[in-house]
């Protein structure tokens, strides 16, 4: 059966052809955004973004070993694995899965496309985690080849099996983390603001907001907003705090290699 490739025929043809020998990645990344975890994740160098971090990734199916690290690590969930070894009109597709309810191997699930529309039913063949603390699961489903390239996810919800569940009391906004890296709740920041700290760097020091992995790239604006509200000052007056190098995490071995 010829693949049903929506407008991207040539881009995916090589992956489609290589998949008869086993699992191979299909890269569905069209956005030219500054992002390259796929390149870093790939142990064989099959995915390359290159020095221009905004470039779309280039993929070499011959070099791909089907390990699935790129599937688990792509923040945009834009990579999946295709495996057509069966040659029976069915293909195995592996997609990332990050929902709370863990699916079970052997169960039937709904297979959906990129817009969340149901494509067909499929059986879960395998579920695996790559470890290293990454919460993303890799779910392999068996689907007809005709829809294989459209699959972007599986729908697996308790409510579909057991009916709706009532949600317990929602946590208050103040308990939500303002800084996810250091897990600092909004209320802690407000407590510190009540002690009279005035500057953004001091607030960072005292609360640890902005001292984690992202160095404030995500939480600094929220922190400034809290400070502005507490002190009645404008954003420009508050300024911003410096991001200290390295701007994004880098391995010590690399930094100490003398060429960083």
């Amino acid at each position, binding site marked *: 059966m010829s693949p049903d490739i929506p407008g991207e025929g040539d881009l995916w043809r090589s992956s489609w052809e290589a998949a008869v020998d086993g699992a191979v990645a299909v890269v569905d990344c069209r956005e030219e955004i500054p992002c390259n975890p796929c390149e870093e994740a790939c142990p064989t160098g099959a995915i390359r973004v290159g020095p221009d971090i905004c470039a779309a990734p280039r993929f070499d199916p011959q070099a791909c070993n089907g390990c699935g690290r790129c599937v688990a690590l792509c923040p945009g969930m834009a990579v999946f694995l295709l495996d057509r070894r069966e040659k029976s009109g069915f293909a195995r597709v592996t997609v990332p899965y990050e929902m709370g309810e863990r699916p079970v191997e052997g169960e039937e699930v709904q297979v959906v496309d990129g817009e969340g529309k149901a494509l067909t039913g499929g059986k879960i063949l395998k579920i695996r985690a790559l470890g290293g603390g990454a919460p993303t699961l890799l779910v392999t489903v068996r689907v007809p080849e005709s829809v294989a390239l459209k699959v972007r996810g599986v729908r697996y919800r308790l409510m579909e099996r057991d009916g709706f569940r009532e949600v317990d009391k929602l946590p208050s906004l103040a308990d939500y983390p303002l800084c996810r890296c250091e897990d600092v709740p909004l209320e802690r920041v407000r407590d510190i603001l009540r002690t009279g700290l005035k500057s953004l760097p001091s607030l960072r020091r005292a609360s640890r907001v902005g001292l984690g992995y992202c160095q404030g790239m995500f939480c600094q604006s929220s922190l400034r907003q809290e400070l502005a509200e507490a002190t009645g000052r404008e954003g420009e007056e508050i300024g911003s705090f410096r991001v*200290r*190098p390295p701007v994004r995490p880098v*391995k010590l071995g690399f930094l100490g*290699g003398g060429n960083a």
Partner: protein
Amino acid sequence: MPEVMSSEVVVIGGGVIGAAVAYYLSREGAEVMIVEEDDLAAGASGACDGFISLQTKTPGPHLRLAMESAQLFPALAEDLEVDIEYRRCGGLLLATSQDQMKELRARAKALKAEGLEVEVLTVSDLKELLPEVGKEVKGGSYCPLDAQVNPISLTLGLAQKAQEMGATIIRGCKVENIVVTNNRVREVHTTVGNIHSRRVVCAAGVGSNQIGKMIIVDVPVLPQRGQILVTESREPVLKILVAGAEYLGTKANIQALMPADVEAAKLGLGFTAEQTAAGNLLLGSTREFVGFDNQTTPEAMNAIARNALRYLPWVEDMDVIRSFAGLRPCSPDGLPILGTIKGVRGFFLATGHSGDGICLAPITGKMISELVLDGETSLDITPFSLYRFK
């Protein structure tokens, strides 16, 4: 705020030393006001590691001061509302050559003679304390009394407790002048108003020279930059403080322990590593005289990382998530400057701790409090007088 304020004692500087002085003074019932140009812990106290290291102190008055200070920490940890993450974890000083080993042995002997518990360890002894060390490591010395603390929590905790006991903390308040009449401090002029006070403590860290000039005294404190790398947070992997012998060399100016590499010597590179309560490793550090520049530099970051890999090869796969630099208030001999000033009554110096501020904060606070209120101290602090330089 009223235009003219008054306080029994004005403490200039909201770092760990200023906060400790205010804490001990408040405990004795004195009326204290901390004036801070920026914010609490905004200077060296907020940009350093949490070493309370005794075996790196110079035998003699310096070591005695540190040992007295170390004894005050457990009570402080109890008394402060904030968790200062104090832990008596022990500390290692590693040697990478037989010459360094010889020097460490001699030092251990001197330290033991002063009553500090120090053990000289072979590489196989080290294995029990540290799972894996670099091939170059030839042994080291271990001090079980070495401890660690969160320097920012300590500073904020001391200030907060002082405030609860009645101290006033004024942030964003720059001291512009100190009025002296009839050889006595009378008033402190600041950007937020004038403060009547007959007693002023200068705990201004790297700003102490500037403060000294206001009463025409040269306080020889220079900013010395120290850079540190911070790794991602991990489960406990490093239970003790670790430093390299070269750290001690560059700190205490011991020729036999200086880095052999020219570039490293230029950076004043010395290895230090500790894991904080949050799980991050702090890897240090450098000693550079670059004025008031507190930026980190790529050269130093590379050098610190390279050096860390020499001592602890297993850090190789850890992510460095940020770096920071702080300016140590450095005195010519690396020892603090404590005490009074000739010819100006009511002016006290508590500065120049040269990277020992966290370790020496409690004893400094206690001694200065005694000096301000009683005019004498329970421990002899004359070796730290400003006049030792003259």
